[in-house]
C-alpha cells in the first residue's frame, strides 16, 4: 500500500507564547512501529493530543487512511480505529479491570441505548474484553477493582483498553512510565508481539525499548521534528546527539 496510514503535515499548536507543535510532519505506513522521542517538554504528549483529537490544531492537517480527520472529535477518531493510551493512568475508578476493558469493547459494539439487560452478563462484551486482558497478561486479574491493581498492572490495563477497541493505529503515551525493570521487560515483550499486527506510534523515554522495537524513530525537540529515520541513523545523527542523546536522558527505574 502506497498511502501511509497516518499522514501528518505542518501540524502546529501554540499555547500562548509557547509553540508546542511546530509544523510537525510525519508519515507512518501501515504496520510500522514508529517511536517518537525527545527531551521533556518537547511536545510529545501534545502531539498525541493533537492526533487523538483532544487538542485542536492551529494549522496543518492529519490524514488517517487517506481521510482528513483534522476536524473530527475524539470519539469519532476512536471509532475510525485510532486508540490511545494515557501517560498518566486514566481508568474508570470504582470498576473492575474487566469492566474497564468491557467498556472499551462496548464503545465499538454499536450504540448503547439499551436499558434493560445487564451488560455485565453480556458475553458479546465480556469475551472480547477477556481476550484483550489476556493479550496483556491480566486475564487472571479481571475481577479485581482497579484501585487494588499495582501501578504496572494499571499501565497494562491501559493498553488492554486500547487494544479492546480493535484499533488500526495505536497511540501509546509512555506506557512504561513508572515501571520497574521487570515490568518494563514484560511490556516490551508484549509490544514486540503486537508489532506488525497493528500500526503503533510509541512515545517513550526508555531508549533501550525504543531502539529494540522501533522500525523508525522521530525526534522531537521544542515541538519540531529534527530527525526521522531508522534507529541506527537516528542514533548517529549529529543534530540528535547534540540536542538530545548527548544530554543522557537517564530513565530511573523505580
Amino acid at each position, binding site marked *: 500500500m502506497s498511502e501511509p496510514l497516518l499522514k501528518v503535515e505542518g501540524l502546529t499548536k501554540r499555547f500562548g507564547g509557547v509553540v508546542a507543535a511546530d509544523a510537525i510532519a510525519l508519515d507512518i505506513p501501515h504496520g510500522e512501529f514508529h517511536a517518537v522521542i525527545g527531551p521533556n517538554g518537547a511536545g510529545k504528549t501534545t502531539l498525541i493530543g493533537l492526533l487523538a483529537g483532544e487538542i485542536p490544531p492551529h494549522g496543518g492537517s492529519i490524514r488517517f487512511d487517506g481521510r482528513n480527520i483534522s476536524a473530527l472529535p475524539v470519539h469519532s477518531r476512536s471509532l475510525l480505529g485510532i486508540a490511545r493510551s494515557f501517560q498518566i493512568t486514566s481508568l474508570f475508578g470504582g470498576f473492575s479491570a474487566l469492566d474497564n476493558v468491557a467498556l472499551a469493547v462496548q464503545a465499538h459494539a454499536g450504540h448503547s441505548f439499551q436499558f434493560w*439487560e445487564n*451488560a455485565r452478563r453480556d458475553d458479546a462484551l465480556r469475551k472480547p474484553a477477556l481476550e484483550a486482558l489476556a493479550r496483556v497478561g491480566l486475564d487472571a486479574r479481571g475481577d479485581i477493582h482497579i484501585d487494588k491493581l499495582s501501578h504496572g498492572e494499571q499501565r497494562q490495563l491501559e493498553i488492554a483498553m486500547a487494544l479492546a477497541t480493535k484499533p488500526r493505529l495505536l497511540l501509546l503515551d509512555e506506557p512504561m512510565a513508572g515501571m520497574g525493570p521487570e515490568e518494563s521487560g514484560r511490556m516490551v515483550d508484549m509490544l514486540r508481539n503486537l508489532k506488525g499486527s497493528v500500526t503503533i506510534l510509541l512515545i517513550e523515554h526508555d531508549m533501550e525499548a525504543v531502539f529494540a522495537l522501533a522500525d523508525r524513530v522521530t525526534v522531537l525537540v521544542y515541538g519540531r521534528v529534527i530527525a526521522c529515520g531508522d534507529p541506527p541513523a537516528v542514533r548517529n545523527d549529529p543534530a540528535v546527539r547534540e540536542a538530545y542523546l548527548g544530554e543522557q536522558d537517564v530513565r530511573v527505574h523505580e
Partner: protein
Amino acid sequence: MSAWREPPRLYFLASRLDLGTTVAATLLALLALVPVYAALTGDVYALTLFTRVLILALAAVSLNLIMGYGGMVSFGHAAYLGIGGYAVGILWKEGFSSGFLQWPVAIGASALFALAIGALSLRTRGVYFLMITLAFAQMIYYVAIGLERYGGDDGLTIRQRSQFGGLIDLDNKTVLYYVCLALLAGSIYLISRLINSRFGLVIQGSRSNDRRMRAIGFPTFRYRLACFVIAGALCGLAGALLANHTNFISPATMFWTRSGDFMVMVVLGGLGTAFGPLIGTVTFLLLEEALSRVTEYSGLILGPLLLLVAIFLHGGIESLLAGLCHGKAP
C-alpha cells in the same frame, strides 16, 4: 457504589444482602403497611404525611439517577416537579381532567424541558453546571409566577384529581397511597436495571472518567442528555402525583431552595445507591416533621445537622450502614 443485582422482593433470601439493602427493604415493607395502620388507628395524618414522603422520594430517585450515578449535580431539579404539577393543573383548568391525558403530558412536558435545558447545560461541568441548572429552574419559576390565569404567585387549587375512568379512584387516600408506592417501587426497580445496562454503564463511566469514555469511542454527550431527560420525565411524574395529593400547585414548588432539599435527601441517603434516595427522603422529612413538633425554629437544629452530615458523612446514611456492617468508618 453498590451495584444492584437482584430485586430483593423476589430473591430476598437468596442473595447476599448488606445492611443498607436490608434496611431499605424493611422500610418498603413498613411503608406498605402505613394505610393499614391508618385504618386501624384512624390517624389520617400519617397517611397524608407518608404519601408526601413517597412522592418526594420518587423525585429524589430521579435526581439520584443523574446526580448519584451520572455525576451531574443539578441544582434545578425541582423545576420538573413543578412542570409535572402544572401540566395536571393547567389541563384540569382547561377542562381536561382525564389522567390518561394529564399524566403523559406531565411526563412529556418535563422531558421536553429537560431536553432543552440539558442540551444547553450539559456543555458545562462542575460548578458551572450547578449554577446554570439553578438559573434555568428559577427561570421556569418566574414563568409560573407570570401565569395569571393559573394562579400566578398564589398558585392554583386543583379541585378535581386526575380521573382514570373508574379504574383508579385517586380521591381515595389509600388508593392514591398505593399508586404512589407502586410507582416508587417500580421506579427504583427500573432504574436499578437501567444502571447496569449498557446505557447505565456509559452513564457511570462518564461520571468516573468522561475524558476516557470519549477516548474509547463513546459520544458521551448524547447519553448524558438522554439520562437527564429520563430523570426529568420521572420527576414530572412525581409532580403529577404531588398535584393530585395536595390538590394544589404553585411556583413555590420550584423555588431553588426546594431543589436544595432534594439534593439533601439524595446525599443524606447515599449517592448512587439504589435505596439511598428513599432512605434519605424518609429521614429528612420525618426529621423535619419531628423537629417542627418540638420547636418553632427547626432550622436551628436541622441546619447544623446538615453541615455535620456534609463534613463527616461523605457517603450518606447508606455508607454509614455499610460501614457498620463491615466495621469501617464511612
